[in-house]
């Protein structure tokens, strides 16, 4: 459905995208995951026909994003990272505006947007500028969907949004799978990767890996352990300096570590050392890596 081949894009000396390529299948919920400055927005804007690549090509539904931009603009829904609806129009007026532009009506496609729009409909007379973050997001998604697009391009819809609204937003995206809409969504939150069918991990304009979240996690090199002690700050300092520790990163109340030599004798030596250094209530357990563990490993 979406094919991206060897796309590069520079802004002056900064190379935002370096030979990026991957494919997204019809009906797939595809995540583009990476920190700010990784190149996510540049790629989204190329797909949305808003900027041109320096080299390489991309197509949506077999149409080229450069040559066939008119077709693409009529048949995709795009939600930019910055809230871009008309703040001085009401919620309903915004929706009506976008429906009219695309030659349709709210009534015609109401069924598609109903699960989302019905949540905010009681406030439809309220000006878009006066909505809360979560409501703005729901309205923007409704507007991007109102012409029943073949593909949705969502640029960081959950950035700066609290954990509750984020969860709700992903539930809405899952609902949309029923309508066979292809969705490409970017996010800096690694924990959202698990909610996608497949993801591309991106950093500094390079795609690090493209796969299902499960396969990415399975490809983690080495055995991962979670460890904690009463004084987690000291524990972190001690482990990082230890010669038998390959990597050590904080994850919530635990540290995630990989041993260089993973034999039980060598592990025991590390634990003895920690106890001798005054660490109390040490808990160690083997764990499965998550996407963030994998991302960190790919960055190293």
């Amino acid at each position, binding site marked *: 459905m979406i094919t991206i081949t060897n796309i590069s894009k520079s802004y002056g000396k900064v190379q935002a995208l370096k030979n990026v390529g991957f494919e997204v299948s019809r009906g797939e919920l595809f995540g583009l995951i990476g920190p*700010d400055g990784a190149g996510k927005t540049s790629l989204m804007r190329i797909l949305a026909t808003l900027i041109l690549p320096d080299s390489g090509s991309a197509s949506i539904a077999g149409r080229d994003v450069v040559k066939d931009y008119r077709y693409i603009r009529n048949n995709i829904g795009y939600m930019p990272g910055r809230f871009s609806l008309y703040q001085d129009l009401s919620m309903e007026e915004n929706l009506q505006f976008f429906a009219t532009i695309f030659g349709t009506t709210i009534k015609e496609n109401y069924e598609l947007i109903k699960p989302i729009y019905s949540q905010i409909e009681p406030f439809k007379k309220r000006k878009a500028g006066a909505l809360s973050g979560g409501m703005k997001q729901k309205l923007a998604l409704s507007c991007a969907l109102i012409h029943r697009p073949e593909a949705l391009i969502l640029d960081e819809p959950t950035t700066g949004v609290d954990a509750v609204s984020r969860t709700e937003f992903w539930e809405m995206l899952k609902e949309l799978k029923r309508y066979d809409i292809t969705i490409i969504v970017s996010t800096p939150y690694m924990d959202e990767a698990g909610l996608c069918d497949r993801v591309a991990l991106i950093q500094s304009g390079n795609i690090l890996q493209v796969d299902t979240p499960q396969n990415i996690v399975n490809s983690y090199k080495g055995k991962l352990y979670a460890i904690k002690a009463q004084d987690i700050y000291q524990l972190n300092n001690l482990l990082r300096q230890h010669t038998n520790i390959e990597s050590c*990163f904080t994850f919530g109340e635990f540290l995630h570590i990989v041993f260089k030599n993973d034999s039980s004798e060598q592990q025991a030596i590390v634990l003895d050392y920690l106890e001798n250094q005054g660490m109390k209530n040490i808990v160690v357990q083997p764990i499965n890596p998550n996407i963030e563990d994998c991302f960190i490993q790919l960055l190293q």
Partner: protein
Amino acid sequence: MTAGTSIYAKNLTKKFGNFTAVNTISFEVKKGEIFGFLGANGAGKTTAMRMLTGLLKPTSGEATVCGYNVFTHGEQIKKHIGYMSQRFSLYEDLTVAENIEFYGGIYGLRRNDIKQRSHELYDRIDLGHARNSLISAIPLGWRQKLAFMVSILHQPEIVFLDEPTGGVDPITRRQFWDLIYETANKGITVFVTTHYMDEAEYCGRVSIMTNGIIAAMGHPQELKQQYGVATMNEVFIKIARQ
């Protein structure tokens, strides 16, 4: 209020017309503590923070920050705190060194002190090679670490961090928290907001705001036990959905 208290708030309230943005919140933050200030969008976090940093007069209640009354000594508070946010922190059209000089000057540091602290700063975050680069030309992760170091350049009693790690890559995000820990260990109080719930676990205590009130407060471990869940994310969702 006891000695060793950095922030004290009792029944602190802010109304905008009929709307009560912050509704009688009370809490204390100890010197050197890392205090996580969490809440859903629109819960009143920003309004509360603006009152505590001397930018907005409360409607009622009491609060002191570094021993100064927020009603009467807003200007004194501004001199004794550091502040950094994700949205704005450094001047993009100035170089790294110029930003440090600028902020040092604003906080009234002497030229020699600025020089010495600049060197310490470069060493700590390994940024000496970029001292003459424009902020707009350095990667976001470095920028955020630099912004934090600049916000504590004048060795404030408290530093307020408003979503300091939004969008930052996972390794830099952790390096950022290393800096936070070091700062707290030196006795500087850290007041931080975040949308990353794993970061809530790094705080000594957290409070969670909903609809203008503090709905829960405590050590992350206590809160997880109290709500019978395994992660702070679940605690947050349970409270915010109540």
